[in-house]
């Protein structure tokens, strides 16, 4: 009993340390969401409107990143590619040995694959007449996609996007394997000294739950904010 008491005390004292992991976790998710968005949108556009060969290439990308487990990618990237690149003197100014950077890139590239499919589905669900009308006005396809197609498709994609957010949140916990001091990594390291993983795991779970809740809430608010007047509530996918 004494042991439990002191472990609980140690856990309690470790709280600020574990809470500090929130920043890293949040950074991982936001970074990966952003990388995934910035790459996912053009990938989706190429997938829907591109040359047949480009479409194949995008499909291949999606297939690859969906197929290889994140853990394997993290190892390949961190211990393989990044370790190799960091030997090149000309690149020494880059933080290549940062696990955080590797994790954001891996999670971002994977998320790009998933996000591209979300946006592709949203674009494909728009009536064909939208693009036709834009072209009939003399818009180039690039302008039509930017001004007419994407603003509508991105709105439609928000519910699926918040789903992607919560998946990414869970995947981000894998970053501890390459030394990122996010919530999970800190939880484990404290548990290793207190030998009482239970209260710590509950705490970690609560933190992830909180992040999920906050993110989804924010996206719901965004969805309401950009809703097109006159349209009934679309609901989630």
């Amino acid at each position: 009993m004494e042991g439990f008491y002191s472990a609980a005390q140690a856990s309690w004292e470790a709280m600020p340390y574990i809470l500090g992991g929130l920043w890293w976790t949040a950074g991982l998710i936001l970074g990966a969401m952003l990388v995934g968005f910035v790459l996912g949108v053009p990938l989706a556009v190429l997938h829907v409107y591109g040359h047949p060969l480009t479409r194949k290439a995008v499909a291949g990308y999606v297939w690859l990143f969906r197929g290889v487990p994140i853990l394997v990618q993290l190892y390949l990237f961190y211990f393989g590619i990044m370790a190799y690149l960091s030997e090149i003197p000309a690149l020494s100014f880059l933080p290549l040995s940062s696990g955080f950077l590797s994790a954001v890139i891996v999670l971002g590239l994977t998320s790009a694959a998933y996000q591209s499919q979300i946006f592709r589905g949203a674009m494909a669900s728009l009536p064909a007449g939208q693009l036709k009308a834009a072209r009939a006005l003399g818009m180039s396809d690039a302008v039509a996609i930017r001004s007419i197609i994407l603003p509508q498709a991105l709105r439609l994609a928000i519910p699926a996007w918040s789903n992607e957010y919560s998946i990414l949140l869970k995947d981000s916990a894998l970053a501890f394997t390459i030394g990122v001091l996010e919530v999970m990594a800190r939880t484990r390291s404290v548990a290793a000294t207190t030998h009482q993983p239970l209260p710590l795991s509950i705490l970690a779970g609560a933190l992830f739950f909180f992040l999920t809740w906050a993110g989804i809430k924010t996206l719901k608010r965004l969805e309401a904010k950009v809703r097109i007047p006159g349209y009934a509530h679309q609901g989630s996918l």
Partner: protein
Amino acid sequence: MDDPVILRVENIVKTIGGQRILDDVSFSVKKGHLKVLIGPSGAGKSTLLACINFLSPPDSGTISLDGKAVDGKSRKELLALRQQVGMIFQDFNLFDHLSALDNVRVALVKVKGLDKRAATNRAMEELARVGLADKSTLYPAQLSGGQKQRVSVARALAMDPKVLLLDEPTSALDPELIGEVLTVIRDLADLGMTMVMATHQISFSASLADEFLFMERGRIVERGAPSQLLARDSGSRTQSFCAKLSELAGDGHCEIAPAPRA
């Protein structure tokens, strides 16, 4: 009758999936004239209109605007052509995420490069012309079908098109909303807008059209002045098609409505 030819369509052939949808179609439209395409559903009217602005590029044949043949291979020429050819669709195709004002304004800014204030002024002018100045802030989902179609007319007119293509502009409308759109079309005809319109509104268009083109299976099989084709004893395909339509509609007449031009 010596108005210049604005649009010339020559020997257009279009095949889709091995099927010949347009088979050597030719006609031309003079400035300020209205040509009306009539014919059964599936005749190729929509495809013909889409060939004119290359939304559906013809396999062969020539489209000339203002005496200049359009090179369908040149992206630049295509975009320029589409700027000068307005199009009205059966189901409006308003941009759902934009207000009525922005629907009219977006191409003025993104295509014509007008600054925002000039685009706004022009867009409001066009909305006023179709009687919707007070609806400019509403979104498509907040407008009736007739209002949507009028916004789409304003959107096309704002680009100063040399010719306007209308693909059954009233076919998707509830009967009580057809009138407001027809009124707008009549006003355009009166103002001298050059137009090609596919429609089943035969007696309405008879009073405005310079020529009827009757299409069937991808060909223009009959053409002539409405009064001539619709004469009861003409024995024309147009006459019998029109008689069939009005029988179905139960309005019991198929003649030229007296033209109430002001």
